[in-house]
């Protein structure tokens, strides 16, 4: 079995989950609590990555992150390197690809916060920002957990997009799902099943961890 690919997969899923939680929280907050012109359009745009087939997303990312795309060019100007075919590149792709799964459950959780708790927080002198961290976040743990589970698992399964911007370089961007793809394509079904099975304990461990965190935060 390709342990290196499994390792890259896990690393990618963890990094994606952590970063995405940080990025999605403020976005979810904006969507839940503010209104501005074009908000639903922005929301639709954020969710678009879900609705597109991975091939299409991968292709657009390739263009944007490539040497002629504006992101790729900006990156090259700053660092002198390329974003494509690197771990950082697939991390960015994976984050973009999973954004909807992080934003949507978080937004739902934030919307459910009792307004009275926010009133109480403001009275106690908390700015909106501090109230976000000290009241909204701790009272949205189950929604945040849901987001984390979705993002983590989705990143493990992501494949079309990663293949496109990653180029399947062993130890760097070759993830386990690519190994499954290869095994299926070459009719090596038992190998495919083996790798797929190895995902069960991983998902299981992650779910246990999340549900533990979730339980601890019960009122």
């Amino acid at each position, binding site marked *: 079995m390709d342990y290196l690919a499994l390792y890259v997969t896990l690393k990618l899923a963890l990094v994606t989950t952590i970063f995405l939680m940080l990025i999605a929280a403020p976005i979810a907050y904006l969507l839940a609590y503010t209104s501005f012109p074009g908000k639903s359009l922005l929301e639709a745009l954020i969710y678009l990555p879900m609705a597109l087939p991975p091939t299409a997303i991968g292709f657009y990312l*390739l263009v944007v992150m*490539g*040497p*002629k795309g504006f992101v790729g060019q900006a990156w090259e100007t700053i660092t002198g390197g390329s974003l494509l*075919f690197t771990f950082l590149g697939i991390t960015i792709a994976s984050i973009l690809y999973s954004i909807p799964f992080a934003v949507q459950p978080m937004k739902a959780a934030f919307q459910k916060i009792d307004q009275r708790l926010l009133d109480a927080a403001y009275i106690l002198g908390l700015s909106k920002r501090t109230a976000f961290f000290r009241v909204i976040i701790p009272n949205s743990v189950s929604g945040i957990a849901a987001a984390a589970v979705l993002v983590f698992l989705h990143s493990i399964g992501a494949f079309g997009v990663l293949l496109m911007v990653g180029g399947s*370089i062993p130890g760097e961007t070759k993830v386990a799902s690519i190994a499954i*793809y290869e095994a299926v394509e070459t009719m090596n079904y038992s190998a495919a099943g083996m790798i797929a099975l190895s995902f069960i304990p991983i998902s299981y461990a992650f779910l246990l961890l999340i549900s533990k965190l979730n339980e601890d935060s019960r009122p």
Partner: protein
Amino acid sequence: EKISVAVAANFIAAFKEIAADFEAKTKIHVEGTFSSTGNLYSQIVSGAPYDLFLSADKQRPAILQKDGLADRPFVYARGQAILWAADRDFCKAATWQDALKNERIKKIAIANTVTSPYGAVAKTALQKAGLWDALQRKLVNAQDIAQSFQYANTSAVDAGFCSLSAKTSSQWKNGCFYMIAEAPDIIQSACILKKTKNRAVVEQFAAFLVSPEAQEIKMKFGYR
């Protein structure tokens, strides 16, 4: 009347034109389902209602025949591996081997050498040229030749092994290419599936597929 054909992804464009021609002539509707060869093979084994299978290789039709699911396979196209680059300067070198040895070439795309026959022959060619090990660090793996071409024409890589069938793409003319003589032709076989209920019509289409008329279209799309 209509027939249903499972077509390997690299042959989509050529197939569409051939099917349109055939329809115009015979009023028989030809419906294509496009996917990777492995995928289509699995579907056929699972009882997919296709009449004809156009594979990207010769192994899978052979297996189908051996398993009694298909008639004797026949070759319907020969694909050719090429090395394409968006930067025309790339082709100033005398041979593709020399072009690849250039220090300025940092990344080279190759289709999956395990799942794609084009990737496999590209690997063979690189090995023959003694470059396989040397270029290992520069190789970027694509899922198939379409993706390999995408890498090359978005300049994500400096050059990419693809198939001559990319020549109908609108981007084709923006770059330059080498033929890879060292790479054997990719022999794409087809087979009529035993399950078919309109054998006569399918045979008619199979014959058309290897007719001079179709041959011309295939040439246009980069097959022999």
